[in-house]
């Protein structure tokens, strides 16, 4: 079987999302998500939709649906190489359905560590790109938020220094502020 093209994957995901009037637990929607998961086992957005839908399945399949949801969410964690969104989905499942807060905690900590790293990179890049486009006031506003979360990050503090230096030149900040 030929692998699905990116366009086909997205079209089938969209079709599944819209099926059953868009209700996550509708039988027709679950069927389409399942078929897509079988055809594309590493397509994470579909696995997450299926994992959620099974937890609110309208035909109330009982524990079998929970067993399937757990397998699908663990698959999403594995094939995404433990991406933050998959860790969060599995964490909520384990806490709410399995009543296991002790399993949820380390998964969320791992997701937060990853997300913070992404946030740090995104903020440093955003401050720099705002300065580059001479949007100094915006750069200062973002700097303030970024420093609150990452007061010691070398990337953030360097970006903030550039933004402040430019803002002083523009008269937006007094010297030595």
């Amino acid at each position: 079987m030929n692998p699905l093209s990116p366009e086909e994957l997205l079209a089938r995901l969209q079709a599944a999302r819209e099926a059953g009037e868009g209700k996550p637990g509708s039988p027709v929607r679950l069927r389409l998500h399942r078929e897509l998961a079988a055809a594309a086992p590493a397509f994470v957005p579909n696995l997450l939709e299926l994992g959620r839908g099974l937890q609110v399945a309208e035909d109330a399949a009982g524990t079998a649906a929970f067993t399937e949801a757990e397998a699908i969410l663990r698959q999403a964690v594995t094939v995404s190489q433990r991406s933050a969104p998959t860790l969060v989905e599995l964490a909520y499942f384990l806490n709410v359905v399995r009543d296991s807060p002790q399993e949820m905690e380390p998964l969320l900590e791992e997701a937060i560590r990853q997300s913070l790293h992404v946030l740090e990179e995104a903020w440093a890049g955003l401050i720099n790109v705002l300065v580059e486009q001479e949007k100094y006031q915006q750069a200062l506003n973002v700097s303030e938020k970024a420093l609150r979360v990452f007061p010691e990050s070398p990337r953030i503090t360097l970006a903030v220094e550039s933004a402040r230096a430019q803002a002083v030149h523009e008269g937006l900040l007094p010297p030595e502020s």
Partner: protein
Amino acid sequence: MCPKVLAVTVLMLMHLGCVGAAAQSRYEAAEQVDEGGGGGDSVSPRILALIARGQFTEAQVLIHESVKGGLMSQAAATALLARIQLLNTKLGEIPAQLQKVSSFPAILKNHTLYEIRTMLAQRDYSVATVSQLRTAQKLIEDQQRLMEKIR
């Protein structure tokens, strides 16, 4: 509604909101969250206080009047109304599949999230155990997340 009538309504509701404040203070403290995009206006804290005390009807009136009077954005109003709806949800109203979790506390089926949160905040374990209350709370709060679109 003319501004004067609105002001009187707001004052009246603010007064109503003060009743029983001491009894619910612990619950209210647990309820301090973002205002759903309505930051900076003066009525949101009042509305949040009413919601925290379970005075949903008064809160809904104040939300609608605030939007009409231009004191609150539609987005902030929608977020607050959704919050009220969630707090008013009974455990027995969550999707049938979620009621099949092995630890489902059926004894709390007729209780709303607001009542369950209040019992937890006040350490009132006369109706259910602490772990039953916690399970009920997370089931009601999570069912909404599960029904949302994945971002």
